C-alpha cells in the first residue's frame, strides 16, 4: 500500500540555516527559548520543532533512536528515513540523535551515549518533546552561556530528570545534551548547564 509522506522544508538550504542558527543560539544561551519554522505538518506525534531540528541536522551519518511513542505505527520513521536518510538504531548508546515523544516513559539519560573522556562529542543529543516551555519561572539555570541565571519552566518531564542531570555532572566532559521542544519552541540544556529546582 502506498503511503503519503508529508513535506519537508520548502526551501531546504535557507530553512536549514535558520533552524541551525536557532539551535546554536539556544545552545549558546541555555534555557532561552527560540522559535523555529519547519515542516507544517510532520507525522504525529512529531512536533514541528522536532521535525525542523532533525531535518536540519540529521543525515546518513547520524543513527537515530526513537522512543516507542515516536516510533508508533511507523509514520515518523518513514518520514525521517525519506527526508533525512538517517539510519535507525534500537540501541540508545549508538544514537547520535534521540527523539522522545513520551518523556514520562523515557529511559534515564545515562542509557544514551555519553561519549568518552577523549571524545566527549560522540554523545547523544536528545530531542525531548514536552507540553510547555516558558522562561518566566521554574528552574534556575547557571553555567556557560548564562550571565547570571536563566529561568525555565518545563511541563511534562519525568520527576527524576533533574536528578539524572545532577547525578551525571561528575562525568564531565562526558554527558548528553538535551533540546526540549514544545511545538515550534525549543530550549537547549547542554551538559554544562546546572539546573536548580
Amino acid at each position, binding site marked *: 500500500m502506498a503511503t503519503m509522506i508529508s513535506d519537508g522544508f520548502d526551501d531546504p538550504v535557507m530553512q*536549514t540555516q535558520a533552524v541551525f542558527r536557532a539551535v*546554536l543560539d539556544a545552545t*549558546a544561551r541555555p534555557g532561552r527559548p527560540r522559535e523555529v519554522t519547519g515542516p507544517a505538518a510532520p507525522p504525529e506525534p512529531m512536533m514541528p520543532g522536532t521535525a525542523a531540528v532533525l531535518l536540519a*541536522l540529521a543525515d546518513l551519518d547520524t543513527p537515530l533512536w526513537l522512543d516507542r511513542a515516536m516510533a508508533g505505527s511507523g509514520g515518523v520513521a518513514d518520514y525521517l528515513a525519506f527526508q533525512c536518510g538517517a539510519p535507525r538504531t534500537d540501541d540508545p548508546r549508538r544514537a547520535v540523535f534521540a527523539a522522545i515523544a513520551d518523556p514520562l516513559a523515557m529511559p534515564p539519560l545515562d542509557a544514551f551515549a555519553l561519549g568518552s573522556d*577523549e571524545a566527549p*562529542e560522540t554523545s547523544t543529543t536528545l530531542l525531548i518533546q514536552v507540553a510547555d516551555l516558558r522562561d518566566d519561572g521554574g528552574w534556575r539555570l547557571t553555567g556557560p552561556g548564562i550571565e547570571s541565571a536563566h529561568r525555565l519552566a518545563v511541563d511534562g518531564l519525568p520527576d527524576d530528570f533533574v536528578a539524572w542531570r545532577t547525578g551525571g555532572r561528575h562525568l564531565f566532559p562526558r554527558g548528553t545534551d538535551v533540546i526540549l521542544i514544545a511545538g515550534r519552541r525549543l530550549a537547549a540544556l547542554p551538559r554544562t548547564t546546572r539546573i536548580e529546582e
Partner: protein
Amino acid sequence: MSVVRGYNFAYLDEQTKRMIRRGLLKAVAVPGYQVPFGSREMPLPYGWGTGGIQVTASVIGPDDVLKVIDQGADDTTNAVSIRRFFARVAGVATTERTTEATLIQTRHRIPETPLAEGQILVYQVPIPEPLRWVEPRETETRKMHALTEYGVMHVKLYEDITRHGRIATSFNYPVLVNGRYVMSPSPIPKFDNPKMHRMPALQLFGAGREKRLYAVPPHTRVESLDFEDHPFEVQTWDDVCALCGADDSYLDEVIVDDQGGRMFVCSDSDYCRQRRDAGHAGHGGPSDLETVERGTP
C-alpha cells in the same frame, strides 16, 4: 557585488555544513574542547583561513552582516578576499564597522570595540592544540586533555621565567576555559586575552588544516594561565596611536622612512577610524621614542 551562480549558498554543500554544524553544537556544549571535523578543500590554501571560512560558511545566513579582519584591519589582503568570497557566494551584506556586524571572522585580533550579545566571532586558527609544542603526539595530547593533565603547560611558562625573568609568550597565550580545558586562543596578542573572558558574544574557532572546531559560549570564564608571583600581564606602549591618539588599543609599529623612522598606529582600523571621526587626533608624526616595547603578534 554580483553573486556567482553554480555554487550552493555559502559555497559548501549541505552535507558538509550539517557535519560542521553538528560539530559546532558539540563544541559549544563542551567549551574549549577541540572537536575533530572533516575539513574540506577550499578555494584558497591552508593557512589562509580555511577553518574560519568553513565555520562562517556553515553559520552564515542571508540576513547576516559580515565583517572580516586580518591583524585587526579590514583592508588587508586576507580580509578583503574572504569578505569578497562571501559577498559572491552568499550574497550577504558586508561591513567594516564592528558594531554593525552580526558575524565577524578574524585572523589574529579581537576588535577593540566590545562585542555584544547576539554577535558571533569566528577565529581562524593555525594550530588549535595548545599542548602541541610540548607534546607532538596527538594520541598523547588527547589523553592529557581527557585527564586534565596540564602541569606541563605551567612548566613551559616557568621555563620562560627562568630564561627571561618574565613570561615571554606574547601571542597565542594559553587560556583555561570554564575551569576545565586549556585552549589556544589562536595567535591573537595576549593583549586581547582579557576580552575573551565573559564575552557576551559567541566565540567559534576553526582550524582547517588541523581539522578542529572549538568554541567558547557567551559569558564563559576564560583565564590566562599564570603564577601567583608572576601574574598575567598584557603589552603596554610608551607611545600612543599617531593617527587617533588612542592609548588603550593594540598598536602596530610601522616603518615610515629609510632612516629607521617609525610610527605606532592602531592595529584595529575600524576603532582608529571611529576615534578620528569623533574628533580625536594623534601627533601625526613618526615616534621620537628611542625604546618602545615592540608588539610582537
